[in-house]
């Protein structure tokens, strides 16, 4: 079987958007992907004042009419909260703002002068009211939704399915390292390098694996870090404390039936900390967990790395 892999890259959703096709045109694929990502950003960005999500967060407790795409994205975020017992919770937006992550990360000064420290347990996903009939979302005044744990993965799943259906070929989409696959895979599968930082390249410490379907996501405390009042912060917040998750693992990679599910599991695992390996194993999720000292733990059928010669 002949395999012709073509790739193209752009910036979207505040990160790198890469599309790879097997047997199709990468420029056609890119042209199909971009509107999908723009639609999602317009609906779900916390940093665009004109986005539907920003209007909900600024709604002062009122029900705000929004695009059905945001309804769908909020439903997915609430599902994530439900199936992880609240460990992945979209109401962490206010906690992130208090921690200093209040604008597009590219514009945050990671060494900014000290600011005041504030933290609080998040209000909880149960306070979010979605009305599908009227297409409205309502959150109590002072509560900010953040869809960072699911929206990018949702965009990857959605765009990959769209492009594969339109071009009739195998497609891989990576949005900042959140990977979705659709259509027939190449004969040897899609080779993906798993590392701490998706932008680090093939030479970075990690492992290369082959995927044939579903999604792969990696959550890491080593990226999106900044300093607040002399304390290092990162974007993965434990809803129980409103503070960045502090466990034994710095990076968790998970494969699942979809990119959304992989991202839910990798985020939940970092919040779970010591309990993560059992949680992932019980759900039959092949996963690679990296300790702070660089050691890797493979569970759920994730292949052990080849021994270094």
């Amino acid at each position, binding site marked *: 079987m002949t395999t012709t892999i073509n790739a193209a890259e752009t910036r979207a959703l505040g*990160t790198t958007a890469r599309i790879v096709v097997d047997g199709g045109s990468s420029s056609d694929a890119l042209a199909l992907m971009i509107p*999908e990502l723009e*639609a999602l950003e317009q609906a779900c960005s916390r940093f665009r004042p004109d986005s539907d999500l920003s209007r909900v967060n600024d709604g002062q407790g009122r029900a705000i009419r929004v695009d*059905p*795409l945001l*309804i*769908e994205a909020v*439903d*997915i975020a*609430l599902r994530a909260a*439900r*199936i992880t017992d609240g460990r992945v919770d979209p109401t962490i937006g206010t906690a992130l703002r208090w921690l200093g992550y209040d604008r597009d990360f590219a514009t945050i000064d990671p060494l900014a002068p000290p600011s005041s420290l504030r933290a609080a347990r998040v209000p909880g*996903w149960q306070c979010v*009211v979605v*009305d*599908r*009939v*009227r297409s409205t979302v309502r959150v109590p005044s002072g509560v900010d939704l953040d869809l960072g744990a699911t929206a990018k993965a949702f965009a990857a799943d*959605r765009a990959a*399915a*769209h492009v594969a259906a*339109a071009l009739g070929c195998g497609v*891989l989409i*990576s*949005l*900042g*390292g*959140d*990977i979705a696959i659709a259509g027939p895979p190449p004969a040897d*599968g*899609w080779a*993906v390098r*798993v*590392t*701490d930082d998706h*932008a*680090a390249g*093939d030479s970075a410490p990690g492992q*290369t*694996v082959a*995927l044939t379907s579903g*999604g*792969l996501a990696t959550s*890491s*405390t*080593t990226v*999106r870090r900044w300093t607040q009042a002399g304390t290092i912060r990162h974007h993965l917040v434990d809803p129980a404390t409103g503070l960045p998750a502090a466990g034994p693992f710095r*990076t968790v*990679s998970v494969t*699942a*039936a*979809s990119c*959304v599910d992989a991202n839910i599991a990798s985020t939940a695992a970092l919040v779970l900390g010591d309990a993560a390996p059992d949680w992932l194993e019980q*759900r039959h*999720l*092949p996963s690679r967990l990296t300790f702070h000292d660089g050691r890797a733990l493979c569970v759920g*059928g*994730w*292949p052990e790395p*080849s021994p270094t010669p």
Partner: protein
Amino acid sequence: MARKSRTERDAGLRQVSTATKWIAGLAAVLTGFITVWEARNVHHAGASTPTVVQQPASSGAADPGSSSGSGYSDPGYSDGGVQPPVSAPAPSDQSSSASSGGS
């Protein structure tokens, strides 16, 4: 005189007949409006109860093309929990097509 009286009576009866038809027509239309309004009112009353909407089991996106106009099917997200992949990843020594890491 009698002829004029009959003519006036016939004209009056025609007016009554026409008015009756209009009233009957309006009543039918009004009944339809009330039925639709009541149906919607009951539906909205149930939907607007302040509860979090639950995603139906095994439902995917309700309308994936609603925003962008595309008509494809996307992966279903099961309400039963995080779903494992069809197959586990395999070791690979190929050059990678993409990297997965924090972002």
